[in-house]
């Protein structure tokens, strides 16, 4: 019987220390992903991590899976190619809020519409952390950033609502504070056939935190706890109260046929010549 894989088989310990600031939740998220892969016992060489640019885009540096480091915003575009090139591979796209929703927004909505079998893990820290804390498409209205010193005049994207409306099969929201839930969701998302999105609300004490909450790790973690409420409680709230919170939990879990299944049904001849499952 094969030896059970631990998270260490997916994580490059020799690459420590992590480049992220102290108090950043990306390390927690990285551990949850490697734990999920270990739980599912997917061999590391069958996993491709596709990333773009940003703090969270550096995550592939710490993973022993395959890593495709792409340009800003294109993790899903590269990932689509990888998945179609060899459907046997598990593709996990790691994107920050700017990467996924701003410059890569088009790829994001079309991946969901197409329902390509990719797991998107969006680390949403409410700003562009790597370039020094500018406002992004998920920065809450009126928050202060280096490009909005008196407050941002644009409302934030609801990442999960957008994913749902565009057709993703699995959509869930959690935070860097809710570690157990985070791991459960990532495991479910990897198992789901079709496009799955896990939005992880994350801390950025250095930039967003310092300008809007506080610069210390505990305060930003507390903030994530304070601004969220789980689905069961959320559903009992009236509209006025709902507006004060971001809902966490599994928000969509359905089984619309994924892109490759539909494609193969329509065009079986094309698939027979391809690689992967059809060989």
């Amino acid at each position, binding site marked *: 019987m094969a030896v059970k894989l631990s998270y260490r088989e997916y994580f490059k310990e020799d690459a420590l220390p992590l480049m992220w600031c102290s108090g950043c939740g990306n390390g927690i998220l990285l551990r949850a992903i490697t734990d999920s892969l270990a739980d599912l016992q997917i061999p590391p060489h069958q996993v491709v991590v596709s990333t773009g640019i940003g703090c969270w885009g550096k995550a592939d540096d710490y993973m022993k899976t395959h890593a495709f480091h792409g*340009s800003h915003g294109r993790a899903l575009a590269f990932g689509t190619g990888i998945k179609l090139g060899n459907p046997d591979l598990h593709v996990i796209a790691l994107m920050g809020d700017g990467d996924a*929703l*701003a410059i890569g*927004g088009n790829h994001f909505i079309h991946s969901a519409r197409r329902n390509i079998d990719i797991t998107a893990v969006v680390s949403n820290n409410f700003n562009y952390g790597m370039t*020094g804390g500018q406002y992004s498409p998920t920065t809450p209205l009126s928050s202060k950033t*280096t490009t909005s010193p008196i407050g941002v005049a644009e409302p934030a994207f609801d990442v999960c609502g957008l994913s749902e409306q565009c057709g993703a099969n699995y959509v869930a929201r959690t935070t860097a504070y809710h570690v157990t839930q985070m791991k459960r969701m990532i495991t479910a998302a990897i198992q789901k056939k079709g496009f799955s999105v896990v939005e992880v609300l994350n801390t950025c004490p250095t930039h967003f935190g310092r300008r809007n909450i506080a610069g210390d790790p505990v305060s930003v973690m507390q903030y994530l706890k304070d601004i969220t409420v789980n689905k069961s409680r959320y559903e009992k709230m009236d509209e006025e109260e709902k507006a004060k919170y971001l809902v966490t939990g599994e928000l969509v879990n359905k089984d619309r046929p994924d892109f490759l299944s539909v494609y193969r049904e329509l065009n079986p001849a094309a698939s027979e010549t391809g690689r992967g499952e059809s060989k």
Partner: protein
Amino acid sequence: MPYELISGCQAAAIAVQRAGVDLVAAYPITPQTAIVETLANFEAKGELGGEFVSVESEYSALSCCNGAVAAGARVFTATSSHGLAYMHEMIQWCSGARFPIVMVNVNRAVGAPWVLDPDQGDSLSQRDTGWMQIYCANAQEVFDTVLQAFMLSEELLLPSLVVFDGFYISHTYEPVDVPEVEKVREFIGPPQFQAQVEPGVQANLHGLSKGETQLQLVRRRHEDMLRAPQVFTAINEKFYRVFGRSYKTVDATIPEGSKTAFLAAGSTAETVKWFLPELKGCGLIQLRMFRPFPGDELGRIVEEQGLERLIIVDRNCSTGTGGYFAQEVRAALYGLTVRPVIQDLLLAGGIDLTKDILAGAAEKSPGDKLVDQEWGVELK
């Protein structure tokens, strides 16, 4: 004089604020971000004179600028590396549309792999897109050139790319003479071009055109750009009278009797200039304007000084051909009766240009290829 200790990025941003713009649309990218952050701060204090918007990509930023110019606004944006590459389609749209947009590009290499080195290939690879390109060697040149670029662009109805090196110029602090806003605005004046879309007059811009029209448009754009050195010189004469500084399209510092000169653009020119007293028998030609290429002026300098050898400092590489500057210089000097030997010091990426590298190149024979030398850099 009101000198301030500022970075290259701040110099660019303050110049934009001094000039006065209606709109800045941008997307953050290292090492340019400090420019748009500084402009966002001016806007927050109500000192920008216009609006600042951080849009969803560089493509959107330049598209937004295009629209704003059509509506009569003076606009500015800044980018680097992948940002500039991503704008490539819109870059050509705006020169074809004859929009006088001013953009700063802070040099940074383009991936893969992910890279931060101040390679010049990002801007040089945009040489055929109809933008004027001016390279700055220090923060004062950045400040002055950004101001002048608004005038140059608005006079010729062509966009300008003001270029300087990432980190070496963008992030280092230098004393810069920063004139008062009133003095600059009086000098530059309000936008010198007409709105194309405005209430009351119906406009239909950039629709399908036929071959002959296109030929005419491209020729006119080309001929107008060829006037840039002359307009640049006129702007600098005027600039000198008000601010006491002026620049040439190509500048030469050739010690008496020197028959060899380094040719460099951007911060590498400043480095060569600094080491010139120790590089016996060598001079410097600083290239500021790259588009249009000031070939006539360069030829005149080479002939007048009787230069026999040019060492071209290329912090870039057009794969398969070599350095961009070396290519352009060879083409420009081809018509001379006596041509100098041209050697390409190919330093793609961002290694520090040291005195040893320069002296090593100068010591080589004119027939030698300047590659894989003993830079003290291990090339694997």
